[in-house]
């Protein structure tokens, strides 16, 4: 009878190199959300405006008498604005627990004792938000543009509005980046995903309400920079070559957006640590 070796066996397989672990974090997160039926239902529902727009484009291209439905460059801006609500909901659903849950489970200490840099960890978490938010903004907007070309059977619309491609990319990315960074920073501040969600909703509504109140008092929209949402609206309007809807210079709104992202990165730098040092 052969006697088998029961002692410890060393690993003989291959290994990755440092710098790629962010993809492991991202993929694990994406997979875990894709397994949730309710979340996938929300993602599908978030694409319903895309379906409506696609039908609109098709009717406009097939029936000349429906020219009132014919899309223009502003249609794409309107589509992105419609998606704001879904960006808000998906950001809360996905983002609130991304770091908070790891902090509650003390998982950061274990993660960061693996070949994983803090920047990779943050990049991985950001990628989860980026992927899902892009799937309801950037991807359908670009697809709509492709559908428009396909339904028309020519490139005339694209040639006349060539700025639409960078506009869609920049407008969507601004939306996605601001939501992702701010939510991830908030998620790193607490161990409770629920509390993070409430904070995000609170900040969004409070700044909008403040702007509304000041607008009602002063009668001018020069203070729109107070509202997180209004800043995005203002800058994306400019990106789409539309007249900005508020009196605040768009450069100020852009600065506020950049400042929010910088502050978020700073918070993440301080809070994402394997060991929390309280002095």
């Amino acid at each position, binding site marked *: 009878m052969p006697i088998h070796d029961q*002692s*410890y*066996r*060393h*690993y003989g*397989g*291959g*290994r*990755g*190199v*440092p710098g*790629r*672990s962010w993809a*492991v*974090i991202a993929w*694990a997160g994406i997979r875990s959300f894709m397994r949730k039926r309710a979340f996938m239902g929300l993602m599908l529902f978030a694409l319903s405006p895309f379906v409506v727009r696609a039908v609109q484009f098709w009717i406009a291209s097939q029936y000349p008498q429906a020219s009132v439905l014919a899309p223009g460059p502003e249609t794409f801006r309107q589509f992105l604005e419609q998606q704001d609500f879904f960006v808000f909901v998906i950001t809360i659903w996905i983002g609130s627990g991304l770091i908070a*849950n790891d902090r509650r*489970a*003390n*998982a950061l*200490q*274990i*993660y*960061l*004792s*693996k*070949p*994983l*840099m803090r920047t*990779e960890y943050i990049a991985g978490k950001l990628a989860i938000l980026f992927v899902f938010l892009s799937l309801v903004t950037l991807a359908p907007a670009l697809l709509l543009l492709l559908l428009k070309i396909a339904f028309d059977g020519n490139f005339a619309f694209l040639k006349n509005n060539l700025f639409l491609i960078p506009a869609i990319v920049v407008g969507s990315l601004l939306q996605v980046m601001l939501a992702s960074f701010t939510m991830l920073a908030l998620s790193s501040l607490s161990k409770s995903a629920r509390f993070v969600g409430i904070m995000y909703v609170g900040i969004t509504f409070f700044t909008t309400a403040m702007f509304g109140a000041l607008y009602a008092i002063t009668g001018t929209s020069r203070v729109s920079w107070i509202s997180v949402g209004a800043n995005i609206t203002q800058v994306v309007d400019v990106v789409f070559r539309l007249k900005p809807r508020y009196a605040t210079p768009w450069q100020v709104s852009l600065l506020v957006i950049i400042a929010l992202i910088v502050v978020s990165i700073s918070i993440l730098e301080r809070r994402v*640590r*394997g*060991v929390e*040092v*309280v*002095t």
Partner: protein
Amino acid sequence: MSSTDTASTAGTASSASTPSTGPASTAGTPSPRSTSVISADHLSKWYGQVIGLNDVSVNVPAGVTGLLGPNGAGKSTFMKLITGQLKPSKGVVKVLGEPIWGNPGLYFRIGFCPEQDAFYERMTGLEWVRALVRLNGLGDKEADAAATRALTAVDLMEAANKKIGAYSKGMRQRVKMAQALVHDPQLLILDEPLSGMDPIGRRKTIRLIREWGRSGKSIVVSSHILHEIESMTSNILLINNGRILAEGDVHQIRELIDEHPHTIYVRAEDPRRLAREFLGGVDDVRSMKFEPNAVVVETGKPDAFYARLTEMAASGEFGAIDEVTSPDDNLQAVFQYLVK
């Protein structure tokens, strides 16, 4: 192992008949050996105005090394520094010949088991270990095989598909060790791996650590209980108040320890029945007192007592023994003796 802590500490350690068996070096200057897996040079860590580790210079050799010290001595700070989770306030720490701080590539060769639980309780042990080993760059199939191998190594394969939330304290410790071991690291760093385990779990874990040591791994294991460390290795590093007090052979330290009564807290299903057995026969128990669902024993022969306790737990005749811990009063007394 060579102690190169501050002059005063090194001097105290040797003058107090310390167990320093390694070649003593000039105070403040480390004398690295080619086999040392960890070398610290004037390593200090402050938390604001509180000092966690105070100007420590030490070389930890390959093999199993016990890091021993009372609670708050600086063991965990040392562990966090050598795993690169804290940045030294001063000094340098090298692990496997390379600076550990900001060097994630080195983590391929290190496995860390933290003292605190760090789980997603809804995941199974297998899912958790598999997810973590993927951070080491292993693909899905390789990760699966490695996780299975690691869980088998810690004798947890039967519970691999149970949710971690349903694991006992011992199983939690073992699954943490599995994640530290899963990528087959050269150096294992185990922070209080026996804490809160029952006697059977302790025995299993000690056996595992010894086996890993024999298989060629270097292991640094921390504890505040000398007898735990002693059963794993004879090579120890004694730490107190953020300084290395002594290092080397455990037996000389043990002689000092045994002069002091040793307090052991045993939480059990039927502590009175256990207490009756403790008092019968062997004269290793000096006194006892009862606490809710527990008995606290003072012994002058901790070795004999622990051996007896393990046998009693294994026999199953005295009901479940849920937890065995040892307050470190006696160790503190030895430290004070060494410092004098």
